């Protein structure tokens, strides 16, 4: 009984924790512009993150090495350093977006300008990391994020033409008035939002820190195989809500507030409150994860003590990195740089940088000296190789598409 509770809790946490500012913005914006015709990119991204996170979790449990330990060992000091620079930059960009996302969400409740909330949000993020235990932190924000189920309820309440939505999703085509490059640019944005690298840094570091062993692999799989796809369902609900309300009215989504509107129209105040609570929880949870990931990547590359299971003074450089990252995110955030644009860049660049961390994990997941008998199976390898090719293609296509479409405008 206790075990079933634990598994369920893990799955629900993974589900609520899946969504962050990138998913909210990308799904709402594409739903408004392309209807459901880009749903495939979300599904592809969810399968990708499942494959990646399962491998990273397994490598962490069996070899006791988190992602950047593996990057350093397999790629060496030099290439590892380039990798670190790129990954750290993107995680930092995501942190800026998440902190601003918390502030924007609170603005919706208070009508007080979000710029004033950014320093407060940053301080709270730091305080939680400093004082709250890893598991409680994860569970609380993951479960609060489940309030976003209101978006799914809203989609049902809006009584859409289900066959119409399904037809859009199953017969993808570029809507009239949109160029093919723009269509694929947004596909990459959705893909990057689902497969953001920090999720894997955080997940694998957590597994090492919680001292997962081979015995925990079942739990790992349950969380990943059920939690992430259910989280993907929330993403698709955001897209569907936009596709129903905004797409026919030629409304473009470029603010966070608009993402809450379909639910407001369908359910009213209770729905609006639930969505905003969900936004706050998801962005705050992701801010914690990205801030920690800044510390994880740097510490694991250099071999510093990291983690939340030891007193902060025992992991001084790790905590200093986390603190500096949060301060930096707040400073950039209050310059009134457009948080939605920062979010869009962070997810698109995330997609471009994925091979850097995916490749070494993929190699180690097949290495018997690390993994013993827990190496990838045949089917896993087929899927994982297909994704490796896809990730390389995406990485090569991102920058040209960004230039050709003027970042999707």
């Amino acid at each position, binding site marked *: 009984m206790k075990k079933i509770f634990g598994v369920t809790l893990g799955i629900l946490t993974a589900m609520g924790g899946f969504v962050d500012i990138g998913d909210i913005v990308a799904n709402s914006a594409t739903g408004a512009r392309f209807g459901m015709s880009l749903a495939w990119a979300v599904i592809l991204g969810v399968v990708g993150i499942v494959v990646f996170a399962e491998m990273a979790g397994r490598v962490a449990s069996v070899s006791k090495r988190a992602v950047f330990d593996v990057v350093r060992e397999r790629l060496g000091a*030099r290439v590892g350093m380039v990798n670190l620079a790129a990954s750290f930059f993107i995680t930092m960009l995501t942190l800026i977006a998440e902190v601003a996302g918390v502030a924007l969400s609170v603005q919706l*409740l208070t*009508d007080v300008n979000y710029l004033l909330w950014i320093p407060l949000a940053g301080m709270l993020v730091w305080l939680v990391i400093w004082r709250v235990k890893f598991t409680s932190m994860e569970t609380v924000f993951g479960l609060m994020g489940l309030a976003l189920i209101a978006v799914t309820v809203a989609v049902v309440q809006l009584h859409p033409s289900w066959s119409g939505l399904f037809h859009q999703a199953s017969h993808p085509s570029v809507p009239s008035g949109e160029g093919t490059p723009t269509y694929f640019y947004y596909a990459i944005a959705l893909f990057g939002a689902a497969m953001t690298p920090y999720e894997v840094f955080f997940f694998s570091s957590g597994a090492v820190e919680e001292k997962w062993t081979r015995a925990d692999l079942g739990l790992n799989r349950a969380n990943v195989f059920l939690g992430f796809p259910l989280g993907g369902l929330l993403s698709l609900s955001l897209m569907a809500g936009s596709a129903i309300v905004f797409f026919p009215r030629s409304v*473009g989504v470029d603010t966070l*507030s608009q993402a809450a509107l379909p639910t407001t*129209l369908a359910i009213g*105040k209770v729905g609006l409150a639930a969505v905003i609570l969900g936004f706050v929880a998801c962005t705050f949870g992701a801010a914690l994860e990205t801030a920690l990931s800044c510390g994880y990547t740097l510490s694991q590359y250099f071999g510093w003590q990291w983690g939340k299971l030891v007193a902060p003074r025992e992991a001084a450089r790790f905590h200093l990195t986390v603190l500096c990252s949060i301060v930096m995110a707040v400073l950039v955030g209050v310059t009134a740089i457009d948080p939605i644009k920062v979010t869009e860049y962070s997810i698109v660049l995330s997609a471009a940088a994925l091979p850097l961390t995916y490749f070494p994990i993929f190699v180690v997941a097949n290495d018997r000296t690390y993994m013993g008998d827990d190496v990838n199976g045949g089917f896993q390898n087929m899927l994982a190789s297909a994704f490796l090719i896809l990730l390389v293609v995406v990485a090569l296509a991102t920058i040209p598409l*960004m230039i050709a479409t003027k970042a999707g405008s």
Partner: protein
Amino acid sequence: MRRLVLFILVVALAATLVVALRPSTPARTFDAYELKAKDTAESVLSSVQTARLVSHAATGGRAFGPYVSVMLSESETAIGEASSTFAGLQPPDDRAGGLRDELTRLVGRGEELVSQLRISARRGELSVLQRQAKPLARVAAELERFTEAHG
């Protein structure tokens, strides 16, 4: 190897900057000007429609005050930004000048109406929003016609 990686990083960064700063190119021909006009109309239409939706929700008791105020003021700002960017473009000929007059009138009307909505919302008068938003329907219809005529 190191040089190649460095080169790729620099190109990527430069590309990102160019795209991010997005220098606006002047419209030298009627076609280019027409395209900018259409983009402006689309963006304003989006904000007008959002304002209409949120006004409807507010009066129906489906949304609370702060949210409505934030959304309406965001719509107002977005219209203002689109309108001032467009106003800064030099129309290349008389035909473009006509286009400019038509769109400026429409956008001005939209901005004024959304401003009124925002003022009412900040005063907490959510019940009047739906009625106040009625004239926006015509602005939206005209903007839609404008984008179709110049698409």
